[in-house]
């Protein structure tokens, strides 16, 4: 498989004003010092054509920032994004709408309600990208929208409704229809089912899997629900505080996680386990601040159950472990058996 998307050393840094003692600082130095929030910090990965890549991590880990960068809604601070061999990271987000790759990268947002324009009918919501990006109109537009509605399982008589007249599942379908309308190659799904009921979620997940098979799209599937990621993804990236801490084939991540954060994450999945009453791996403590992180300290320090002196003096790099699996921990090869067992 060739690479559809190559991300190289991508960074997004937001300057934040240091509000604590700003006045005193101003009096002493004349200007308040600024700090930097490292939302996405030196991330490199590849998404192959036709692949479904999962991106997991907790809130605040930089998932959403990464999604915005890849969807070209915001500009990276540094680093490159290559899409189908073409560098698109340098095109300013303002002007990306006119770029040929605009239609190729689309997003399904988390909140299907919020992603539909309340003043548009379902038809108009789906038609908007077709009108703007493919300049469709009239009967051609009508046919395409009807076809898309059919594809996402939305009864065509619902196309005349406004968003508040649709049920949660129907909104999710319109939301997906809007995103796939212009036949994107890469569909970024930002927690597409987290606001849905279980029964609706199952239907929507099946729909997504079918659409991917039918249309040959690649998925970047962002979620905090690892069970859902496992159902839909071939490969998984695990993010923690702006960094990728582990990546690899989905099954290996779930059965043989190497990074203690991934192990904790998997161990925390609520699950009915009738037989095992073993102690779960619990991550206690609060995450470190993403503002001006110390480059010589492992970002997981403070929550990691097995931190040692080395973790405070040297930040671990992402080390390949073979067969596409990589993990950023000093101890992955010596990870204790009980940690593995619990994961």
């Amino acid at each position: 498989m060739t690479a559809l998307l190559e991300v190289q050393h991508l960074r997004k840094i937001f300057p934040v004003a240091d509000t604590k003692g700003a006045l005193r600082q101003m009096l002493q130095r004349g200007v308040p010092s600024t700090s930097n929030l490292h939302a996405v910090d030196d991330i490199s990965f590849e998404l192959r054509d036709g692949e479904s890549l999962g991106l997991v991590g907790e809130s605040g880990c930089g998932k959403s920032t990464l999604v915005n960068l890849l969807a070209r809604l915001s500009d990276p601070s540094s680093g490159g994004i290559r899409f189908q061999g073409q560098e698109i990271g340098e095109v300013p987000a303002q002007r990306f709408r006119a770029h040929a790759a605009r239609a190729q990268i689309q997003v399904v947002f988390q909140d299907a309600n919020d992603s539909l324009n309340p003043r548009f009918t379902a038809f108009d919501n789906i038609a908007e990208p077709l009108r703007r990006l493919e300049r469709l109109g009239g009967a051609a537009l009508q046919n395409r929208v009807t076809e898309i509605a059919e594809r996402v399982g939305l009864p065509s008589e619902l196309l005349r409704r406004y968003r508040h007249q649709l049920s949660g599942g129907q909104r999710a379908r319109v939301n997906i229809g809007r995103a796939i309308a212009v036949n994107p190659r890469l569909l970024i799904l930002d927690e597409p089912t987290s606001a849905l009921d279980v029964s609706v979620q199952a239907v929507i997940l099946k729909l997504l899997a079918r659409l991917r098979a039918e249309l040959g799209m690649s998925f970047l599937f962002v979620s905090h629900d690892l069970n859902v990621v496992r159902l839909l993804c071939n490969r998984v990236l695990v993010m923690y505080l702006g960094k990728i801490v582990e990546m690899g084939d989905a099954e290996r991540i779930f059965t043989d996680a190497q990074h203690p954060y991934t192990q904790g994450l998997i161990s925390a999945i609520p699950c009915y386990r009738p037989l095992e009453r073993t102690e779960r791996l619990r991550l206690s403590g609060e995450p470190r601040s993403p503002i001006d992180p110390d480059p010589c300290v492992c970002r997981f320090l403070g929550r990691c159950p097995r931190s040692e002196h080395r973790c405070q003096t040297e930040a671990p790099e992402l080390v390949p472990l073979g067969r596409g699996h990589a993990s950023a921990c000093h101890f992955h090869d010596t990870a204790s058996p009980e940690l593995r067992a619990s994961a």
Partner: protein
Amino acid sequence: MNKPALLHMDRLSVEFRTRTGVVKALEDVSLRVARGEIVGVVGESGSGKSVMAHAIMGILDRAGRVTAGSIVLGGMDLLGASEADLRDVRGREVSMIFQSPRTALNPIRQVGRQIEDVLRRHAAITRRQLPRRAVEALSRVRIPDPAKRYHSYPFELSGGLCQRVGIATALACEPSLLIADEPTTGLDVTTQATIMDLLRELAVGRRMATLLITHDLHLAAEVCDRIIVMHAGHVIESAPTAKLFREPSHPYTAKLIAATPSGQESIDAIAAIPGSLPDLRATNLPPCRFAYRCDRHTRTCDRPSLTLTAVGEGHEVACRRPL
């Protein structure tokens, strides 16, 4: 079931008056929770699980009305009680923690002070003891450095810490019943896991009765002794956790289990539940509100007066053709 129940809700029915008709939000819902027991109430949105919690707390929306049934907590009839008595009970005997921890806290008041507010209202302690008791309450929910956190404002705390403060506030007067309404929705899984551990500990260590309301069957399974499954305002099944998963009796429960992703490797392994909830304003609702969506539905299902029937030890189901 044989244990004396602390909370005893019997055939409760609640209606909501809306512009477009009367919503039968709860119908004939019965529930018992004993001391030291965690009971999970699982259902999708619209199943009436939160309405039930609000009815117990006596904080139903003004449009809502209890039309039948009783709620007895430790011998006290909550529905017949005066508002003054209810205020006494709330906070001291029964407490609730809410879905969004940040909005449940007063943003401009130090968290320690908010706990003191509850203590001052309900506990017979002197003014001088208040700060010490508040710090104790914070440390009880494993908040690191509670003496320092006492002075924190909610915005200075993470979501997980806010929820801990919410729990600390709810537990400050050591209530005998805790109602947790989706306490971890919106929190990270790792935080959720630690909050759940805490609830479990409190139930075991303090013999507190807990009602955990959630849409996540597996979350309930992890901590609950018993699970009650609700659908469209009915309790459709009630069973000990292991039994519910091993041999679900109601078709809806079975479908719900099958539809929940839980470590399956392929999308084909999960099943979808077709259809949606019936309109609860309809006057001709079938006795089984799952009938429209059920593939086992036959004419027998349309016979009136469907009730929970025992199918095993502590296992009840409201279905004419159980699995």
